[in-house]
């Protein structure tokens, strides 16, 4: 994966995190100084591309943010973010070496 692809992926991740932050509940990143990890409910289906992370105990999405899961995935990013009944884990790690723009620095 090239740096630009990594950067785009990171932007997608940021978008999803922003979406989840707007949802309240057991949002990711609640772990304080360390990394936050939360088990969340399944990324459930909605009408078309959805902004919900699923029914029941699910968190994330909602509030009109970026879509969290896709009901009819076609592309790679849609496939890995397709709506599912599988157990999902949210994690918001602290990564001190991330570039200011959120991209990954080259390997040493």
């Amino acid at each position: 994966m090239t740096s630009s692809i990594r950067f785009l992926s990171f932007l997608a991740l940021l978008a999803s995190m922003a979406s989840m932050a707007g949802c309240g509940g057991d949002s990711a990143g609640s772990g304080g100084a360390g990394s936050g990890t939360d088990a969340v409910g399944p990324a459930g289906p909605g009408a078309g591309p959805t902004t919900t992370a699923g029914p029941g105990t699910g968190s994330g999405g909602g509030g009109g943010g970026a879509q969290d899961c896709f009901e009819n995935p076609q592309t790679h990013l849609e496939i890995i973010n397709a709506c599912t009944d599988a157990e999902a884990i949210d994690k918001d790690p602290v990564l001190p070496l991330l570039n200011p723009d959120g991209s990954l620095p080259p390997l040493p």
Partner: protein
Amino acid sequence: MRFRRLMGSAAPACCAALFAVPAEAAPCTDLDNFVVLQVGDTQEPLAKQLGRKLADDAEPITLVYVTSGSCTNIEAIYTDLSVTTTPKFVPSSNDDPSWDPSMPSPECELPVDGSGLPIDLANSATFVSSCTTDDPPAGIGFVSGPVQGYLFVVPEASSQTALTAEEGYFAFGFGEAGQVTPWVNEELLFIRPPTKSTILTTMAALDVPAAKAKGVPYDKSGELVAAMQASPDPEASIGILGVEIYDRNRDTLNALAFQAFGQNHAYYPDSTFSATDKQNVRDGHYVPWAPTVFLGEVDEAGSFVDDRVARIVGMILGEDVQPPPDPPFDPLALVIGVGLIPDCAMKVTRKFEGGDLSLYDPATPCDCYFLSEVGGDVDACVACEGDEDCDGGACHHGFCEAY
């Protein structure tokens, strides 16, 4: 050109007397209709399970095998190397009724003239292109087999439950300098040498070249498992394993859910932490996986020259083979049972290591059969005995599958 070897090609009695062997070690060349395999160590459970069935078959085949890294195996078959390390073999029920595939396989003795054993069938547990971009030499070909998932694992005492690709990039790509707590001690990053499929596939998911990965490499999966089980600091420990190796060590190791670049959540290979349904590998929510590949001597049409090799590979691929297994068994159940995912149960595919996923529609899907074998939910599935039970559809492995 290699020649098919059949039973009866024993070393002369004089040599057996001159070169004493341990009490239970027989010359490999004495074994009944033996076929020599060089496979990844993640594939040993399948070799043992299938080998027992083949040894007990009405037309018995004895699997003689060594395990090594996928890239080493590819190089061996490409360059016509022979097995020169002590092989193992899978005994028949007649030869050793007390043995079962959960036990170590017995060893056999190499030819005393030092010539080694030519490899009939090699295996890579990941894409050939991950090891070499060279075309196979003339007369050697390969086919893709079941999908193998790979995992990041921690000792059971660890509190960690997930790894993001970004975390993995810094932890394995930078080591201690990556500052990814709690994985900052490079002595506790349990990895594999760069010729192994396990590191090739897991590091591809992190965008870290396998040769640059930080950590302590272990040659065999079993050695890595033992080292992790004995880790002095479980919280700081993280390792990599093939899913089927992990499945046999779930009592001491925990899988980490993995969140790929651009993914919104982390997922286990299975639908839940405790499930064994490989749902997320099959539908694309779990990214670190690769197909197994089987390599051997082929004819101009690309078919395996050795009928026994063709039969073995055909069984692994879930094809109808001739002669059919006798006594009958479903080889696909063995494949699924060791934690592999047959192509017919996959809903996504990729073209190269770490490549993007795309939707996949297998020619003869086996979703319901797969779920039935892993204890999954088959409420929506229709059992059948023949196509006539399937309302215009096809009956495959006992279920009406969508064709």
